[in-house]
């Protein structure tokens, strides 16, 4: 199913949770809403589900207005952050719930319900837990049951709120891979909310980066990582070195010191220069953009992490250099970025 979000605005009192949000979700894709807590991502998910209503704007399901329909009529599978399994029902009854509450012609026979629940429990590989109660399951098992329960109604879209948020690191990784595989099998349009960029980048076909109720960027994981379009996206996704700079008539300077870097067409004003830690080289001070003093060298992996205190403002930057690099603490070095991005706001 195609989902259209058009100019959606939502306020909670004086707090603006969503400001004029527009988004198109394609059929069959797995899309991540990524942002820090309080960015409005869960609110957007709940509005799509019909658990909250926007103050203004439209939600379209296959081009048809969905706001006139309540959550039950929208036919969405919603997986809650804390699973919200029915605590007084067995795993079997939890999964069967959506089938048992059907009325009229869509009602299934007991045999059909049993067969369907068994099929779903097999799909999430937890058939052997059918007679347990939710409080007898581990977090990862609960999560998979919640998913099976949501899938029971054959939803046109699957919405997951922080699906792995409450799990420990190891289970989270396993479940993430499992969910990806499951999505490839059943191909239902899926939207999940997360604050964990690693999760979003690994799992999603496309990532929607949200901050303060606005969409900053929509793109494939590769796109948002390689070509961040705003300072927020660059800082939020992946590691970044951020150096405050000023652009004046195409010249980039750092605390009054000229850098000889290309301003990338940025307008005059204060701004930030972003570099990935592994895209900053150490050079002779003469041809460098910045210079500073090495204060610390550490790291056991393939790269060495070097801490440099910048000349000008004493800001600390951390860069990754090959193990073969020979610098020592106390040395004055020049820094030159290979790849970088400049974002300015007019002053």
């Amino acid at each position, binding site marked *: 199913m195609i989902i259209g979000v058009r100019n959606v605005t939502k306020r909670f009192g004086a707090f603006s949770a969503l400001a004029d949000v527009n988004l198109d979700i394609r059929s069959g894709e797995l899309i991540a809403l990524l942002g820090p807590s309080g960015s409005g991502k869960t609110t957007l998910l709940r509005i799509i*589900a*019909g*658990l909250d209503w926007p103050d203004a704007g439209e939600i379209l399901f296959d081009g048809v207005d969905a706001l006139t329909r*309540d*959550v*039950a009529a929208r*036919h*969405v*599978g*919603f997986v*809650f952050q*804390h699973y*919200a*399994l*029915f*605590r*007084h029902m067995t795993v079997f009854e939890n999964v069967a*719930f*959506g089938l048992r*509450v*059907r009325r009229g012609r869509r009602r299934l026979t007991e045999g059909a319900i049993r067969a369907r629940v068994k099929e779903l429990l097999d799909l999430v590989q937890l058939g052997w837990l059918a007679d347990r109660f*939710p*409080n007898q399951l581990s977090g990862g098992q609960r999560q998979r049951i919640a998913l099976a*329960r*949501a899938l*029971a*109604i054959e939803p046109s879209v699957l919405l997951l709120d922080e699906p792995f948020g409450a799990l420990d690191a190891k289970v989270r990784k396993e479940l993430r891979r499992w969910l990806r595989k499951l999505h490839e099998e059943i191909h239902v349009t899926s939207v999940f909310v997360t604050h964990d960029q690693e999760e979003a980048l690994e799992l999603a076909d496309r990532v929607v980066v949200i901050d303060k109720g606005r969409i900053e960027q929509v793109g494939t994981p590769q796109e948002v990582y390689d070509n961040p379009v705003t300072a927020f996206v660059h800082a939020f996704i992946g590691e970044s070195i951020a150096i405050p700079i000023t652009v004046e008539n195409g010249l980039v300077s750092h605390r009054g010191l000229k850098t000889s870097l290309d301003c990338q067409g940025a307008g005059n004003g204060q701004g930030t220069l972003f570099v990935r830690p592994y895209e900053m080289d150490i050079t002779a001070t003469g041809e460098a953009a910045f210079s500073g003093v090495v204060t610390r060298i550490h790291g056991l992996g393939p790269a060495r992490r070097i801490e440099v205190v910048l000349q000008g403002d004493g800001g600390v930057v951390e860069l990754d250099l090959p193990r073969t690099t020979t610098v020592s603490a106390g040395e004055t070095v020049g820094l030159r970025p290979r790849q970088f991005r400049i974002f300015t706001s007019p002053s």
Partner: protein
Amino acid sequence: MSLAQPTTSRPTTQVPQRTPRTEPAWARWLIIGVSVAFLGTFLVLPLFTVFQQAFSRGIWPYLEALGEPDALSAIRLTLVVAFLSVSANLVFGLVAAWAITRFEFRGKSVLMTLIDLPFSVSPIIAGLVFVLLFGAQGVMGPYLQAQDIAIIFAAPGIVLATLFVTFPFVVRELIPLMQEQGIQEEEAALSLGASGLSTFFRVTLPNVRWALLYGVLLCNARAMGEFGAVSVVSGHVRGETNTMPLHIEILYNEYHFTAAFAVASLLALLALLTLVAKSVLERRVGLDLSR
């Protein structure tokens, strides 16, 4: 390579049992003794006396006292009043707890405070309120007389007074549980296609059933035992508006000790049964809360 030597087992020495507490034994026994003696003197002994007095002339006078028409009528009235006030509080309790835990509205804290009012108001005031409202000299008195409706000095007044004093029991049990459980399960049910009514009966109600039953039990105990408020509105008409506590008082004042204690023992027995049921339920409610 040397083989690991089996460790020779040494004779285990008995370690003296100690606790990190510092009270000497005599202090522990004193503290336990005082609390047991206190409970014994002020709770167990009086209760025992009730039964001892009730059976002091043997089993026949006991049964006779209970089988007497006025006693039977008092028992019947008590059961009817308890049933009605429990039913009303069951519905009201669910509705009020729902309103308080699910909606944000102006005056919510006032409502919360009002629910507790019967706990802080003396039962005699609870009775007087209804006399002033529905009595012959009361606000609604002339109108009710014209319609030939009797509330004060009749069963409806007793039900109203009992309702007033038992108001908080069910709500008080439900609110913390419903707050703790939140609305996510209900949202989940709705998203799975359940109607509002279906969600209530399949999810909300089963989740609070033990707390609800517990509240009902407390409410029932109070409804059967209430004396003060009921005494004001009842008018003490024998065989008509006497509940068990009122009947006991009359018998006692008329020096029918055996009969008084016989009825009292029945009331005490009901209270003991409630206590057992309550402690069983408490465990279930605790389980629900901890889940």
